[in-house]
Each structure stands twice: as structure tokens, then as C-alpha cells.
């Protein structure tokens, strides 16, 4: 009898322990399966420039079961802390990293090391150790900008504006220089460092060009913000820039600037985030080709298809 009771006790204990093991396997607070973490490195100064890109990324993250970790990279006048952030994120186990155009060139030396841990994606063409790019070629951007400017007039000094430190802009500016020369125009070049963009408007006034061509979204955004903030009237020179941001739209509408070239930031954000999620899951990246580019003057702003570039319709 005693042994029978003991055996029963042991059996009950065995069953209870077995149930305990099963219960411990059930998570207390269920999470969505396979929720990815995607880190996004962008320049702190460009946070306003990224509004529509973020919207696109967030939609893609929601569609792909991913969460985004936006990390702003600060600039001390000489360099950014992007390298440190990228390596930290890669080592910390993020599932993929997206890098903003403004810091791509600076991070290129460490991409091989970082990409050993996770997929790295950039917006621009020609980066080693990154998975894709779909931004329209730099040449096409410059060609469209210059054609817009030439339609308005060929006289006077043409100034090419770029931001030093970003290889993409150099490609565009080098092509723009060559293209202008083909049109019989000898341009002046001005390359500014990132922390000088606030004084840029004054510098341009001093240089007194007739036409300014800026194939760089960050500089265009900074200038348009400045003009909006200062409520300034149109500068004496014609300005053609890049990017589909709200300050740029307002400047175009008010005649402060003459033209813009851009693509859908929302679409670019969506595509790159979707691709990051697919890459993180070891799947094929589906997008091929380039996003369409648009040349936008004041007349186009009334058209809904162009308005959606600046103010994407939210689902």
C-alpha cells in the first residue's frame, strides 16, 4: 500500500513537471511572429527632409511585419558618428540597416565589416557591399535640371551647387558641368560643407549668379527652409533644385524657386524598407529598375499627380 502511494505520488509529480515544461514554452505575452527590426541611419540635420520617406518606410514596415529604429547621425563639422552607430547596430543584432544618401560615402569603408552581420541597403547606385539601389542615375537628374534652366534662359553665370563629402553629388555635378559645356556654357562651381548651409543664402547673394543649379536634396531643403523662415522674396537668381519636400513646394508655389526635379520619396522609402525586410528574411528582392523622375515647375503643382509627390495620400 505504502509503495503504491509512493508510485502514485511520483507519477503525479511527473505529470505536473511535464505540464510545467509545456507551459514554459508558451510565451506570456504573445508577439507577432518574426517581427523584424530594421535600423535606419539618417543625418540629424535632414530629419525634415525625410518626412515622406519615413511615411513610406513605416507603411512598408507595417506590411512586412517589421519595426523601424530611426537613428539620427550627428555631424561635428568634420565627420559624423555614423560609423560607430552602424557597427553598433550590426553587432547588436538588427535584421537590416538602411543608410541615408548623405552619409553613404562616409560609411563605405566599413560596409564590408557591417554587412557580415546583416544586409545593408542604400538609396544610391554603385555602393559596394550593399544590396540594391533604385534611385535614378545622377546624370538624369542633372540633365533634367539643366534642361529646365535652359528653357528659361541661357544668359549669364550658371553656378553649380553641391555639398562636399557626398560622392553622389560629385557625380551629378561632374556630369552637370560637362553637360553645360556641351551647351556652350562655362559653369562656376560652389561646393559647401554641411555646416555651412545656413550661411549659404548670403554666400549666393554675394556671388551674384544668374542661375543656380543644385542637384542635391539636402541643400535644396535647407535653402528653401531658410527662405520660408525669413519670408524672403525670390532671390535675384533663378534657382533649380532637387527633392519633393514641403518647403520646396512652398517656395515653388511662391516663385522663390523656379523648378525642381524629384521622385516619390514615399515610394523610395516604401521600396527600400520592403527590400530590407525581404533581404533580412533571405528572400529575393523584387524591385528592379529605377523610380521615375519628374521635372516640376510652378504649373505642375496644381496637378494632383504632382501634389501626391509632395503630400502622399495616406492609407
Amino acid at each position: 500500500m505504502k509503495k503504491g502511494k509512493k508510485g502514485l505520488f511520483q507519477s503525479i509529480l511527473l505529470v505536473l513537471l511535464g505540464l510545467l515544461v509545456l507551459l514554459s514554452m508558451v510565451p506570456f505575452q504573445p508577439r507577432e511572429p518574426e517581427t523584424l527590426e530594421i535600423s535606419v541611419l539618417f543625418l540629424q540635420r535632414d530629419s525634415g527632409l525625410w518626412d515622406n520617406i519615413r511615411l513610406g518606410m513605416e507603411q512598408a514596415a507595417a506590411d512586412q511585419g517589421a519595426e523601424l529604429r530611426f537613428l539620427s547621425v550627428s555631424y561635428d563639422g568634420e565627420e559624423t558618428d555614423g560609423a560607430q552607430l552602424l557597427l553598433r547596430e550590426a553587432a547588436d543584432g538588427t535584421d537590416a540597416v538602411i543608410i541615408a544618401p548623405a552619409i553613404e560615402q562616409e560609411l563605405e569603408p566599413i560596409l564590408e565589416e557591417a554587412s557580415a552581420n546583416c544586409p545593408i541597403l542604400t538609396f544610391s547606385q554603385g555602393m559596394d557591399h550593399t544590396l540594391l539601389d533604385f534611385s535614378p542615375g545622377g546624370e538624369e537628374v542633372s540633365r533634367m535640371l539643366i534642361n529646365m534652366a535652359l528653357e528659361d534662359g541661357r544668359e549669364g553665370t550658371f553656378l553649380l551647387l553641391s555639398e562636399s563629402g557626398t560622392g553622389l553629388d560629385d557625380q551629378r555635378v561632374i556630369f552637370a558641368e560637362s553637360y553645360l559645356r556641351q551647351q556652350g556654357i562655362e559653369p562656376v562651381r560652389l561646393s559647401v560643407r554641411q555646416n555651412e548651409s545656413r550661411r549659404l543664402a548670403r554666400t549666393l547673394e554675394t556671388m551674384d549668379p544668374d542661375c543656380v543649379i543644385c542637384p542635391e536634396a539636402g541643400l535644396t531643403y535647407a535653402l528653401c527652409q531658410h527662405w520660408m523662415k525669413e519670408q524672403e522674396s525670390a532671390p535675384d537668381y533663378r534657382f533649380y533644385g532637387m527633392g519633393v519636400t514641403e518647403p520646396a513646394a512652398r517656395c515653388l508655389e511662391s516663385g522663390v524657386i523656379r523648378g525642381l526635379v524629384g521622385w516619390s520619396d514615399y515610394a523610395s522609402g516604401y521600396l527600400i524598407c520592403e527590400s530590407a525586410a525581404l533581404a533580412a528574411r533571405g528572400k529575393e528582392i523584387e524591385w528592379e529598375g529605377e523610380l521615375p523622375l519628374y521635372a516640376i515647375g510652378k504649373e505642375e503643382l496644381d496637378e494632383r499627380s504632382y501634389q501626391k509627390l509632395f503630400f502622399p495620400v495616406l492609407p
Partner: protein
Amino acid sequence: MNEAIRSSSSRSCPKRWLALLLALLLALSAGCGEGKAEEEKTLRLGLALYDQQDTFISSLGREVEQLAQEETRRITVRIVDGQGNQSTQNDQIDQMIQSGYDVLFVNLVDRTVAASIIDRAREAGIPVVFFNRQPVGEDMRRWERVYYVGLEAAQSGRLQAEIVKEAWDRGEADRNGDGKLQYVLLEGEPGHQDALLRSEHSVKHLEELGIPTQKLSSAAANWSRSQGQQQMEGWLDRFGGEIELILANNDDMALGALDACRDRGLEELPLAVGVDATGEALAAMAQGTLTGTVLNDGAGMARSMMDLALALDRGEDPAQTMELEEGHYIWLSYRKVTEKDVEDYLRQQEEEG
């Protein structure tokens, strides 16, 4: 027979105990594995803003993101924009609850609907930190894991009055020399607690400081620069140069009113005082158009919100480990910004990029 039974029992008894020991070890190791996964888990914060078009609120969201980045603890911050629609915000919050976020930061569109949000979060065991738009006290007491981070709106109104007093004492305010200050008032939104308190206490404190006032008109401009401009255009048609002071519940509306004055080509702008100390406001002060503003300590709010989230993540009871009023509230202070110190604030902003 008894020998046989005894013999088989004695062989199976150690086996059973061995099986028990193995099962116990298995259960313990499964428990340990679960604990290890918890340590590495990312802290997931959901941040629901009432409207990202609000300059101050948008910058506050970025502050929280920046703080998350600086922590050694791995943190993701999901920011959603209610676009001024409570129904939209409710859907967004529900989605975050279903996704199992660890802490919800909520900047309500409609401060009267906090109860339903609290109940849903409570059911899911997710603490809620309201900020900037204060729920009613009764709702805050529904659950011990509900918190509020904000500043006392009445103080901001009083500080606005002090800025005007300084201008009055310099002889810059009473332009028609009648011994009274003719003003127009731009209010945030109808029924918004901060709007009501700022409006009430700015004017009341002006009187307390010995400045007789005459209200020409007031209107709600929903914190919006463009609406502030529209409103001011109408007032300029009605009152023209009579307006000596623009009192606005926030900087965006004050700047909008000044936009209207500039478009009208006024030779002399009225005094204008806002709240928030946004970048645009500081720039306007540096140019001499905006008289003054009151710093809405967004950085301090973001820090307090993050501290709360981290305390909750560590399993602490913030009511015990942090300085909370009534177990739920963290109150921060506003600060005056005048021409004397605007350059310092501008420099600070520039350094922060």
C-alpha cells in the same frame, strides 16, 4: 512471489526518481531559456501624437527618438500621427496594443476619451503615459499604471504677461498713449485645457502687474500658423493699427498673425508673444518681429517620459522610485525667453543641429 514483486519494485524505484530528476532539470532549463530571451528583448515604445503638423509636438517626438538612441538598452520607438482625429488615433493605439508594445505614450486628440484608452491598455497590461494634453483627473485614477508628463499651462500664461510687462515698462507697448493695452487673443482650440488656462492667466496676470487691458477680440486658431494668419487678416480689416498686442497660446499662431501684419505692409508691428520657443519663433525674435516666447520644455518632457518607460521596464513602481505627484503626475516648468537670452537659445539649437 513476494520476492519477485519486491525485486521488480526495487529496480523501478530508482528509475522513477531518475525520471523525476530529469524532468525537473528540463523544466528548470526551459525556464532559464525564457529568462535569457527576455533580457535581450528590445524595449518597444509606442508614441501616439495628436497631430504631427504641430511643430512642438513633432519636435517632442524626435526628442524621444533621440533619447532612445542614446540609451544602452535597445529601444524602438514607433511614432504615429493622429492627424487631429481621435478615431484615427484610437485605431493606431489599438494596433500598438495588439502588437504588444511595452509602454504607450499618448498625446490625446480629445482629452475626454482617455478612459477607454486606459481600459484597453490595462486589459493588455501595458502602462500608459499621457503627455502634453492632460486627461481629466478621474480617468487618471482608473489604474495605477497611468501617468502624465506636462507643464502647468497657467504658468505659461503668467510668463507671457511678464514679457509684455517688460515691454510696457520700456514704453514700447502703449502706442496710442491711452494708458491701456489693446490686444487680440489667439486661442489654441475650444475646450483645450492648456488654451483655456493660458488665455485666462495671461490676461489676469497683466492686470495683476498693473497693466490695464482692453480686449479687442479673440478667436480659436487651432494652434495653426495659417489659421492665425487668417484670423489676424480679419482683425486688421476691423481694427487696423489699434492692435497693440497679439497674445497667442502658441508660437505658430503668433507667427501667423505676424505674417498677416507683414503682408499688410504695417510700418510698425504690434507686440506679439507666443509659447513653445520653436526654432521659427526664436528666429523671429532675433529679427525683432516676435517680442517674446515661453519655452515649453520639450526636452525635459521627453527625458521624463523616457525615464518613466525605463523604470517600468526595470519592473519598478515609478510612484515609489520617481518624484510623482499623486502617484501619477510629473510636472515640469516653463521658462521665459526674451531678447536678452534669445541668442543663447538660438546657439543651443544650432549646436543640437
